[in-house]
């Protein structure tokens, strides 16, 4: 009898889903061709979208897959960005190395912040992280750290020129770097979610008591998830610092946390690739709203946001999944 139950179980629950190779392959081909079809500015925007997508995915691992709320991810984004900027500006490190370093610093920061924050659930955690988000810009401006952070003036980050053997512009090169990093990060996230660890994360989200009674070490998993989430956001922050070539405290206000949150909801919580839509949304829709009316851009952004949430209650990813099921039924 017992074996009977096991054979009937959905294999996705035990070994995880398989990567849809065809779709991913198509995505990679399109992504690789795009920089040659678009101008420098569009490449720069594409790069920012991918950077936001990585940060949103980090937030989604925490909120969508583990059920913990954070309104302070701008802080981790800032820590990643400043790590990269300080290493390049003060110590002349190669920019490429600073990206993973930014991520690791954020992982440690996130893990340590996650430990005490564990005692806080839901809304209380949201408030604690909110405090972190509003504190960080002020800390960066503080005169005690001014020698390191450049204070209000910020720091310049200089990118080395494109290596001569590459027939690429600076914008194209960084588009490809961001594209590569994003693919790796998405692949890691996919493997994480479709593993024992991922199932434990989701079990804690769905029913913490049941998860604990199954032997899941909830506190360890929660702080680890916090660390991994911060790691993703830190990687994104470091890349943003390099691509924008400048960091300043005003770049990492609480508003950035909200934007990432919006991106996550619009893209679809519980979805990995929805983060790309989220990044696309938070970069392009404010610009679009501004084009309609400069004075009312936030009102228009709000209206668009309400419409999107009303029409797509489970995000863009949810809509796509729904359409796939419907089409399959029709066929």
């Amino acid at each position, binding site marked *: 009898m017992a074996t009977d139950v096991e054979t009937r179980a959905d294999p996705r629950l035990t070994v995880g889903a398989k990567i849809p190779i065809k779709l991913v392959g198509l995505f990679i081909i399109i992504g690789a061709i795009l920089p040659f079809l678009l*101008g*420098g*500015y569009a490449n*720069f*925007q594409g790069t*920012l979208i991918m950077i936001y997508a990585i940060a949103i995915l980090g937030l989604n691992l925490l909120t969508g897959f583990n059920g913990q709320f954070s309104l302070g991810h701008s802080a981790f984004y800032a820590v990643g960005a400043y790590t990269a900027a300080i290493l390049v500006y003060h110590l002349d490190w190669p920019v490429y190395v600073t990206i993973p370093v930014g991520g690791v610093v954020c992982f440690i920061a996130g893990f340590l912040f996650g430990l005490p924050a564990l005692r806080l659930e839901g809304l209380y955690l949201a408030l604690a992280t909110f405090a972190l988000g509003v504190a960080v810009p002020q800390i960066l401006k*503080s*005169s005690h750290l*001014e020698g390191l952070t450049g*204070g*209000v*003036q*910020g720091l*310049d980050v*200089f990118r080395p020129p494109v290596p001569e053997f590459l027939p690429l512009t600076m914008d194209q090169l960084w588009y490809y770097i961001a594209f590569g990093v994003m693919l790796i990060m998405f692949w890691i996230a996919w493997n994480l979610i479709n593993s024992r660890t991922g199932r434990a994360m989701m079990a804690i989200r769905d029913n913490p008591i049941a998860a604990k009674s199954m032997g899941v070490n909830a506190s360890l998993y929660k702080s680890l998830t916090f660390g991994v989430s911060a790691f993703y956001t830190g990687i994104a922050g470091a890349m*943003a610092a390099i691509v*924008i*070539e*400048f*960091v*300043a*405290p*005003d*770049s990492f*206000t609480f*508003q950035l946390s909200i934007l990432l949150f919006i991106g996550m909801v619009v893209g679809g919580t519980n979805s990995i690739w929805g983060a790309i839509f989220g990044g696309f949304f938070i970069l392009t829709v404010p*610009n679009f709203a*501004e084009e309609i009316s*400069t*004075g009312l*851009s*936030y009102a228009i952004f709000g209206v668009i946001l309400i419409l999107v949430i009303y029409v797509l209650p489970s995000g863009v990813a949810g809509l796509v999944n729904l359409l796939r099921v419907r089409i399959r039924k029709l066929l």
Partner: protein
Amino acid sequence: MNTGRKLSLTIAAVAALGMVATSALADKMYGPGVTDTSIKIGNTNPYSGPAAAYSAIGKSIAAYFDKINKENGGVNGRMIEFISLDDGYSPPKTKEQTRKLVEQDNVLLVFQGLGTPTNSAVHNYMNQKKVPQLFVATGATKWGDPENYPWTMGWQPSYQTEGKLFGAYIMENVKDPKVAILYQNDDYGKDYVTGLRDYLGDKADSIIVAEESYEVTDPTINSQMIKLKDSGANVFYNVSTPKFAAQAIKKFRELNWDAVFLNNSVSNSVGAVYKPAGLDNSKGIISLQYFQDNTDPSIFDTEPYKKWKAFMTEYYPDGDLSSSFTVYGYLVAQTLEQVLKQAGDNLTRENVMKEAANLDLELDMMLPGVKIQTSPTDFFPIEAMMPIEFDGEKFVPIGKVVSVN
């Protein structure tokens, strides 16, 4: 033979045409964003976010360009197309919007980007791309560095310039000066002190008898004030932001310190500083200003004020007549108008920069004697200011304009 002759004729004709074309080009040289009938000017300004109060500057500039488009048909027959984008005072957004202006909208130049961190984010980019970043709206000193950043120019007096001008004021008006300085311990505070020291030169160490700094996070500056008074100085040079400036004024009176009170323009505000400190306490404080105070009733009958007011009523009716930002926008837009006028039909980016570095201009809402002057080695347009004294209600010009030169 026949074909050969035809060919040579054709070549001659083409060559002749080519020469006509080049000579026409020699008269009219256009950079990106310029046509026979229009010039595209880009701008970033915070229309949303924490610094949105500054949006009055962007709006008054747009209103001024509307005015010259309507009344004069633009500049030299070219309408000004002013593209002003919102950056919410966020440096990454500034970078994105500025790249849009330069690469997508193809503007001739970017004008009056607002804020120090925001302009810093595009400082290198603009200079690498060789696009003029003209008359940025910030008081930092780094915008006047033609050697390293030949495509960037500030407009308002920098903090260092103002520091120098205070030096000039002290040397001209105070006998046997002994200066005590209170300053905020950051770039802004140090810039003011550096400016003063630069002006005093070798004598700085003997004239400056005391220096005390405070941190933005300090609750009060009382102990600093007591130390400064004990130094026996007869000039108090206050480089602090509004909250601390109000405290300094109160303490200054409490201690019965008999000295000339010099106040930096950062806290030269009736509402934010002099009222909280007590209007009576604030009598006699001296500060520097470079354009007319549009809230001072004594100038309401003057021609410049009437002209400005007529402009405001017609082109920017929602604008606040008591805000200095609207005067600022009106003046800085006229400065760009002058640059474009001087550039004539040679509207390349190089020539625009050349003309921006070749200004000698007086504008009517400026205080008399304050000129806008630049040269290829001097990228600080305004380097003269008028000393003004607060009389308990309003500012009264005293003495004559002080200038760095």
